[in-house]
């Protein structure tokens, strides 16, 4: 580990990707993630890598298709409207079993919406990253430092499971500076016998493809992929529990809103209210078990999101309605305050006490 320096989230992600062996980045400008491209544009030529500003988000994700098929670590980045445009390409990456990393530094929607932080693409990322039966790995770090560690893991897991991994951040995490240090990791490139990089007359030709005209073949492909998904759901969930051992009220929040929730939980504890926080780090796979465990002593659960309540459904599904699940949310770029979360915690605890 090196010195801790102050760095913007977006720039830290870019630096982490380069250190994780990514030498192919394809972007298209959009607020609040333009710094990723700007950083890549500066650094890639220095490390012999490729930064390319594509003509559109669609072109960018398809350049990722090509680069990923060729076997290199490839990445693209955008924000909400741009991610919608990438959904066809993401579905192809899934269908072709190609690894890559995609950033969604979310902003308020729908439509052009706004440019302030939001978490309203949760459903899209976790349930419908494209058409068809499909999933991608979704990571939701909460600090600039965690963004860095996630990026390393995401490249690894994407290759291990041959699927795209998305970092679901938001404008707050992308724009803020925090201290960060970069791990000194030696990247050992994964063997990719499937890569379409020219067979040099030494093997059968490789094909990256998602077309299967025979329904039973396509079904077979999908079932194989869902077996992989099941394995991932069993082994790759990540979450952080904070003060959950004896909590009366459990807050569930991820990414930027988990930071606010954490402040509120700390204040609540200081004021004698037994609050706890479960912070999913992977959103897909959703950390069901971790959540169930964290909620064991809780009489009430409060989900805090910067959306109209998208993760709530996953919390309900995980807890199977075994306890009341409340929701506090803001949308459109409004960031909740620790005070209002605290208030809500008190109301819930009060109500529960009645």
């Amino acid at each position, binding site marked *: 580990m090196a010195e801790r320096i102050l760095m913007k989230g977006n720039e830290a992600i870019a630096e982490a990707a380069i250190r994780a062996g990514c030498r*192919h980045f*394809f972007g298209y400008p959009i607020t609040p993630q333009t710094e990723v491209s700007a950083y890549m544009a500066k650094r890639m030529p220095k490390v012999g890598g*490729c930064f*390319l500003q*594509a*003509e*559109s988000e*669609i*072109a*960018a994700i*398809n*350049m*990722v*298709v*090509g*680069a*990923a*098929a*060729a*076997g*290199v670590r*490839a990445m693209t980045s955008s924000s909400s409207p741009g991610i919608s445009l990438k959904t*066809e*390409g993401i579905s*192809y990456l899934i269908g*072709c079993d190609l690894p890559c990393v995609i950033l969604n530094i979310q902003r308020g929607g729908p439509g052009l919406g706004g440019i302030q932080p939001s978490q309203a693409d949760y459903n899209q990322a976790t349930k419908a990253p494209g058409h068809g039966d499909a999933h991608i790995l979704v990571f939701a770090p909460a600090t600039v430092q965690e963004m860095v560690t996630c990026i390393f893991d995401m490249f690894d897991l994407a290759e291990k499971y041959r699927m795209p991994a998305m970092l679901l951040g938001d404008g707050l995490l992308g724009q803020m500076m925090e201290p960060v240090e970069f791990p000194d990791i030696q990247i050992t490139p994964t063997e990719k016998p499937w890569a*379409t*990089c*020219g*067979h*040099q*007359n*030494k093997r059968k*030709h*490789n*094909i*990256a*493809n*998602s*077309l299967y005209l025979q329904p039973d073949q396509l079904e077979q492909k999908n079932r194989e992929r869902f077996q992989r998904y099941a394995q991932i759901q069993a082994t790759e969930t990540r979450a952080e529990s904070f003060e959950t051992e004896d909590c009366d009220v459990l807050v569930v929040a991820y990414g930027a809103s988990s930071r606010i929730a954490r402040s509120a939980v700390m204040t609540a504890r200081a004021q004698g209210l037994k609050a706890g926080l479960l912070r999913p780090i992977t959103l897909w796979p959703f950390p069901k078990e971790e959540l169930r465990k964290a909620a064991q002593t809780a009489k009430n659960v409060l989900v805090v999101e910067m959306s109209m309540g998208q993760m709530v459904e996953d919390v309900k599904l995980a807890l199977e309605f075994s306890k009341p699940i409340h929701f506090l949310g803001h949308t459109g770029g409004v960031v909740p305050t620790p005070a209002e979360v605290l208030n809500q915690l008190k109301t819930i605890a009060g109500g529960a006490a009645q």
Partner: protein
Amino acid sequence: MTTVYEKSKMLTDMPLSYCPGCTHGIIHKLVAESIEELGVEGRTVGVAPVGCSVMAYNFFSCDMVQAPHGRAPAVATGLARALPNNVIFTYQGDGDLAAIGTAETVHAAARGENIVIIFVNNAIYGMTGGQMAPTTLPGQVTQTSPYGRDVKTAGYPVRICEMLATLDGTAYAERVAVNSIPNIRKAKKAIKKAFENQIAHRGFSIVEVLSTCPTNWGLTPVEALKWLEDNMIPYYPLGVYKDVTAKEGK
């Protein structure tokens, strides 16, 4: 006995999925023969489009990627950037390249991306059953221009080579046809030249090949060749629209 002509080794044993007499097959051969003759099969990666040639990945014996509809130039760009010393080509239809893929085509050309595009212009959407393409001729009847393409509402055909020739990044753009033996020979030359350009890192080369779709034109394969000659060639003049090597005096 000496062999005068046989199937290229750059083609697999898989029978082609094209309709009888569809000239997609001829163009496949020309691509395969060019790559084989240049001896670069082992470092070639092709990109198949969405269109009748969607399964080109089964037919060419080099590594292949199947791209989303229209995005082959972007996929090829990703490949070319990751594999700068390989030979990268796309094989695309007119719906794929000139409609949904317009932006990807124009910008791969503008960037001077070091790739070859084989553009199969058959004036129709073959695979989906014969809808109007951007290249469908005025008055031509298709499933979605049942009264003949009316330029007043459906607009005018796009001439891709002419359009791309206006871009500084385009190294080579030529239009050929495969309706007759002499034209096939010229087409072969153009395609091979495009690959030579790429091997020499000259940048973006496109060969537009006028091709038939007997099935959706409602003609026999032989009639289709004639229709191509009588109707398409006058609208899409054959020839070289850009060639940087001409300037270089090669």
